[in-house]
């Protein structure tokens, strides 16, 4: 499969592509060292994918233990101490070792250079270093939570974490501190790549929205992560030296830790969710066969979230004793950040309107994202409101809210991305039936797990407690039942995606007939992504124009050979626009 440059129009039906490209990034070299010393962004993406799957499993097992323990009002399987360590392990592993690196490190690494027509990220060695740094930090953190554990909760508030906790706080914090550098390296690499490595014709206004989203994410990673790094350093110094700036006995203020911690950790939830929003923009256009509604609005709302997200951190501290006036200000700013998120949701909904929608697994995950993220976002406004937050603060309502955003939003977006790009990454198609089944099971299991928690929280069940009154048991049992369904839903992709590597049908270069540049190379991609530097002449989502007329790609050869392909029944559709119509979307 070759790249068609703008001045070589193709009118005849394209020749069928070669079944197996001679050399691709996977079969080029099979040695272990070729993986461990690779500077290829695609292989580093795969390294991250494997590591993150491992950490997701560890965090998921911890979540399962927490839910099992809550089956009984007095704790079913764990002691109080073990319970504290277990929910901390769940929080630390899921947030720092899965959600923060998830889409930027796996999909960002793999697809940002391909989407903008580059051969690699700007700093390939730095990229490899980021994986090693991540693994070293993750090693410390996982060792800390498994060998003895941490009982402070992932928020690590002093003076408990600095003075009174006799658990592995120091190695755990050190691990998180190190993974922060990995996050900075990835963010820096992606940002410089987007600035400097775009191929001819790839203007900012023609960039896929995934790139805009990751650009905004990198902005937060670059400006937020160093602040938590210094905060955690100060915490470690305080623990090791026995004296430090958060120590109330020498006039220090533990509340200052909360300010500095949330100055990063609130924007960090946007590090987690904004890449997911980028994925949704890619998938929703592809499976509705439509251009995105409001490209500029969706693109700039990512940047808007990144900027306003830095101004809302104190809403975590409404009941911690901050000034009443600053609480009012932060309440207002928190509601303000709902605006760009809502802009995105409305634009995605408008994109679906009158689209030719098909329901393959990536689209099912994306639609689930839309529903769950909206619920999570709206319940966030309850918590931004000062009066209701005093009632709901630190209850299961908060737990349910952020799981709706983080799991219902981000994890589903991650699954959507994985299913969307799996054929490109591995060159194999997975089971259509089982992937749809998995999306449905996860959606149902998710609702069953977390809706009861809203009720629990509203009735006052505090988070992080192993015990609860008898009348809450029914909701806790419902929630645990939902978690089992959810867990089963997560196991399925592990099985059918693995099987697809060995038994899956070979994927064509563009199984979804998508418009992005990453689909213009063979699956799996060749060593340097493109045989020749691509040239871009139109916007990223010109689904109304036949793919072969966009001046940069070829449609799938229609035919019986691809009948069983889950996506092969939609080819280029819609009225053919003028060939090489220049469609500039943003300035």
């Amino acid at each position: 499969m070759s790249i068609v440059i703008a001045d070589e129009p193709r009118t005849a039906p394209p020749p069928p592509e070669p079944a197996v490209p001679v050399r691709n990034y996977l079969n080029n070299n099979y040695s272990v060292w070729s993986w461990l010393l690779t500077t290829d962004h695609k292989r580093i993406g795969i390294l991250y994918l494997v590591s993150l799957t491992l950490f997701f499993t560890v965090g998921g097992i911890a979540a399962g233990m927490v839910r099992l323990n809550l089956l009984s009002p007095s704790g079913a399987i764990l002691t109080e101490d073990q319970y504290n360590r277990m929910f901390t392990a769940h929080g630390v592993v899921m947030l720092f070792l899965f959600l923060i690196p998830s889409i930027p490190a796996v999909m960002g690494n793999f697809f940002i250079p391909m989407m903008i027509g580059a051969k690699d990220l700007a700093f390939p060695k730095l990229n490899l270093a980021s994986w090693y740094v991540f693994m070293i930090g993750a090693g410390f953190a996982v060792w800390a939570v498994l060998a003895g554990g941490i009982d402070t909760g992932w928020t690590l508030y002093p003076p408990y974490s600095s003075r009174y906790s006799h658990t592995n706080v120091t190695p755990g914090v050190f691990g998180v501190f190190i993974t922060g550098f990995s996050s900075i390296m990835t963010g820096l690499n992606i940002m410089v790549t987007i600035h400097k490595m775009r191929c001819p014709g790839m203007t900012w206004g023609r960039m896929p929205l995934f790139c805009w989203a990751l650009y905004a994410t990198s902005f937060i990673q670059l400006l937020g992560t160093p602040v938590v790094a210094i905060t955690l350093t100060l915490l470690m110094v305080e623990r090791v030296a026995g004296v430090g700036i958060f120590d109330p006995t020498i006039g220090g203020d533990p509340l200052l830790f909360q300010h500095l911690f949330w100055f990063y950790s609130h924007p960090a939830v946007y590090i987690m969710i904004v890449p997911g929003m980028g994925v949704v923009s890619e998938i929703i256009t592809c499976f509705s066969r439509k251009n995105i509604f409001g490209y500029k609005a969706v693109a700039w709302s990512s940047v808007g979230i990144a900027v306003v997200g830095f101004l809302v951190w104190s809403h975590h501290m409404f009941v911690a004793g901050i000034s009443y006036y600053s609480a009012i200000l932060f309440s207002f700013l928190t509601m303000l950040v709902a605006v760009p998120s809502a802009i995105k949701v409305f634009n995605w909904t408008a994109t679906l309107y009158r689209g030719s929608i098909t329901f393959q697994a990536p689209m099912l995950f994306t639609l689930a994202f839309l529903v769950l993220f909206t619920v999570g976002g709206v319940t966030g406004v309850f918590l931004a409101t000062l009066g209701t937050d005093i009632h709901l603060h630190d209850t299961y309502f908060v737990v349910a809210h952020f799981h709706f955003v983080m799991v219902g939003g981000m994890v589903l977006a991650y699954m959507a991305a994985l299913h969307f790009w799996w054929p490109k990454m591995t060159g194999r198609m997975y089971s259509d039936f089982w992937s749809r089944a998995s999306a449905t099971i996860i959606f149902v299991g998710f609702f069953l797990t977390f809706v009861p928690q809203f009720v629990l929280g509203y009735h006052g069940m505090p988070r992080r407690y192993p015990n609860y009154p008898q009348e809450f048991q029914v909701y806790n049992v419902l929630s645990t039942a939902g978690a089992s369904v959810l867990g089963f839903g997560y196991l399925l992709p592990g099985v059918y995606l693995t099987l697809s590597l060995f038994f899956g049908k070979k994927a064509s270069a563009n199984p979804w007939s998508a418009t992005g540049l990453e689909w213009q190379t063979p699956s799996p991609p060749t060593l340097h992504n493109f045989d020749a530097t691509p040239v871009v002449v139109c916007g990223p989502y010109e689904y109304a124009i036949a793919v072969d007329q966009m001046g940069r790609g070829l449609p799938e050869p229609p035919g019986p050979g691809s009948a069983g392909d889950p996506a092969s029944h939609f080819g280029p559709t819609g009225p053919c626009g003028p060939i090489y119509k220049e469609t500039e979307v943003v300035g």
Partner: protein
Amino acid sequence: MSASTHSPVLKHHFDNLEQQHSAERLGMWMFLATEVLFFSGLFVAYTVYRYLYPADFEFASSHLILWIAGLNTGLLITSSLTMTFAIRAAQLGDRPALLRHLLATAALGSAFMGFKAYEYATDVEEKYVPGPMFQAEYDRAVEELTHAPKDHAESHPHNPAWDLAARNLGKTYGDPGFISPQRVQLFLCFYYVMTGIHGIHILVGIGCILWLVQQTYAGKIPPENYSTVEVVSLYWHLVDMIWLFLMPLLYLAGAGMKSH
């Protein structure tokens, strides 16, 4: 791609040297932004506490060794100058000058660290270290001064704990003019953490400069690759600049206070 792009220093994934250099520069500037944010957490915390406890911070600051800080400031500013000369030498392809300027920069940075180490040693000798060390010395000073004020005060004229005990003699917490030994320790936490982290940055900078020296010896810094020197210099200047903020915050805060 034209033939001119196949320079040995051009990496395979860049189209031309200009793109490569501008990517390197942009990457370093972004890294510097993260460094600024890293230190800004400390600056914010310092500002909060200095606003809360101005007199205690002034007293604590007045017992740091000002002449070393002044000398070190001079050393670092000079090293920025030699670093800039090094860029010029790299652009001109003047290898001996490049080596000279790089080595001078590394030497000035090392001298900074040497004086810093001497200062730390002096501080430890005076027991001017937050935690039990300072507190025990202060308690001892209070005890002995309460019994025989004159003799002992003169026997430890420059010791911060003794000076503080002499000032606080006859006062208790909350009296006007009472300076809390605990808050002095809070200042010292900032002093050690800020200068310590800055020192680590200087060491990393010296490491990078020595790496440049090795690269220059190996002939890997031709004029078209001068941006490598420039990128390291950006980092070095930032570390110098952070010192220019640390120095007044830590050493000059109490300069108006007569300490001895």
